């Protein structure tokens, strides 16, 4: 699914060269849930930006879903981001002027779906996160947890194969953090590969696999840690369940 070989990234300014990643190697298989930890400044974010095609890299090879990513044009990489990758940020990064439906619709717009298809997908995605009833609300009218769920819906709307989450629970209290985490696990269960950067060991432990980045390199590599995690909700929340119920749980 994702394969990085000897990736390095150097930031240059007039005075200094900073090696954000050096000879970075990582293989992630389809359907995995990978947690990435590491001290701040270790290169976690750089890794995520490169993995998400938001930044180029200085050296090495990167294959995503069999496609060679090095030297892709901006249009191509935008298309890949749009179709294959979903992003979830610590700060939610919802567009404040757009209501929930419009926020979720954004990636679909860029994909060029027609109005009907967009509507269907927005509806579906918001149902998945249990916020279909609040479609017309503005982000500012929601709690942090709800906002993050909208962000997840936005990431899901394009039905990506691959979800990148950067401290998705960093701005949430523990209760909301748990809910978001559960949601991610459900999504993973349904087949989406997830890479999550976090500095919370508690959360990291819930992933199938943990990697640690130190000084721009993969340092620790744990496969199938434990392997016997319990999954509290065995299925995805779907439209068949009452959204209003979900609302209450979330708020």
């Amino acid at each position: 699914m994702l394969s990085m070989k000897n990736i390095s990234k150097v930031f240059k300014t007039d005075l200094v060269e900073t090696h954000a990643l050096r000879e970075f190697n990582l293989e992630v298989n389809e359907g995995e849930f990978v947690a990435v930890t590491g001290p701040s400044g270790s290169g976690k974010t750089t890794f995520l930006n490169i993995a998400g095609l938001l930044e180029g890299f200085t050296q090495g090879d990167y294959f995503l879903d069999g496609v060679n990513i090095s030297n892709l044009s901006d249009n191509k990489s935008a298309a890949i981001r749009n179709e294959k990758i979903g992003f979830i940020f610590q700060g939610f990064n919802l567009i404040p002027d757009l209501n929930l439906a419009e926020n979720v619709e954004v990636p679909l717009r860029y994909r060029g779906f027609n109005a009907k298809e967009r509507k269907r997908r927005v509806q579906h995605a918001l149902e998945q996160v249990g916020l279909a009833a609040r479609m017309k609300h503005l982000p500012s009218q929601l709690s942090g947890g709800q906002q993050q769920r909208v962000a997840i819906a936005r990431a899901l709307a394009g039905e990506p194969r691959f979800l990148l989450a950067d401290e998705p629970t960093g701005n949430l209290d523990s209760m909301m953090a748990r809910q978001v985490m559960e949601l991610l696990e459900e999504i993973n269960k349904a087949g989406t590969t997830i890479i999550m950067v976090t500095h919370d060991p508690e959360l990291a432990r819930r992933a199938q696999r943990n990697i640690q980045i130190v000084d721009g390199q993969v340092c620790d590599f744990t496969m199938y840690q434990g392997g016997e995690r319990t999954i509290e909700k065995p299925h995805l929340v779907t439209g068949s369940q009452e959204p209003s119920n979900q609302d209450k749980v979330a708020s």
Partner: protein
Amino acid sequence: MFFYYLDLAWRSIKKTPFLSLLMVLAISIGIGITITTLNIYQMASINPAGERSSKLFEVRLWSQGIDTWSRLNQQITYQDGFNLRKSPVPVRQTPMFMTGFAVQTDDPEFTPVLENARVTDRDFFGLFSVPFLYGGAWDKQVDSEPAYQVVISEELNKQVFAGENSVGKTLYLNRKPYQIVGVTKTWNPSPKYYDVNNGAFNDAEKIFVPYSLAPTEEYQSWGNNQSWRNEPMDTYAQRLASEAHWNQYWVELDNPEQIRAYEEWLANYIEQQKLLGRFEMPDAKAEIADVAQWLKVNKVVPEDNKILVGLSALFLIVCLVNMLGLLLAKFLKRAPEIGVRRAIGASQTQIFSQHMVEVGLIGFCGGVLGLLWAWGSLSLLSAHFELEDALTQLGYSMWVLAPSIAIIAALLAGIYPAWRICSTNPSVHLKSQ
């Protein structure tokens, strides 16, 4: 996608109403000023001959003596006007000059009115494509065998005959009876290119009489008269034989061969006149100018006008730079949102387009508002300065031109800010703010 961008643009404009208003105002004022000056300029520089412009030529002759005028004069002498008519080359040709009459009718109660008139040949009407309401021009024969016939304008026909078909009726010009042979349909080229000597934006004459009548009727020249030497001009015969310039001459030439042939004919004419002791300059020459060149030669467009257009173009640039700054500020403030859009899969092209649509929308609003300013300022100017209506009417082309200039200008101003915003690395703005 365009409508999505339009929707986003509209939201963005609404979100920062003050800033947006400032930008729309800036561009609209720039457009308003530019369109105002451009309109006056364009109206002054319009070529009223249209597609016939390149077939109609004004003739100028270097008939002045040594050490007098240093350039070709706009007019020619009567004797040259009379002689040039003998050329077989032009398709149509006519000499002319301006005079005027006290106009009376059979009705003794009618108070005489003073009207400008043009003394010319039959070809005048064909040459300048003058449309007729009733009747037509006098016969070709009249040009050599004078007859008291007259063509009047629709306006005078309304004034004198209440708009009825007056062909065949009698009109008294300076007490002499003339038979009306034609009534022209409203015809008022602006600039009045066939004679720019006497106010380039004056109205066309309302009366046309045969040139062949001039020696008998002794029509006075009401236009400019230019002399380069002192000579007696007490009698009309002296005036006709003088070297004073008070006639104009136009020819119609259909193709380059004709033009060449006519130029040759003129050269021969000058040689022949030299033998008679006229055209004293050794390199005396003739020159013909088509309508476009003619308007240029006569500087029909005032210099002031050009300065104004130039300064207002600079003004527009200031407005654009102003807008560029504001746009840059506005767009960069939105960088985080754009980061998200980029991460979600918007390409640089799409972000760029989104912003260009927004800028274009601002430009369009500015253009429409600018058109309003232009209309307002033109009406104000025309009310205050009694400018000729021809100059202050907002031309139809301006309705298209104003928004187009506004949009293009805005897009130009928007390129840099839009490029800045679409080329910033999205990841910078994605970390928690």
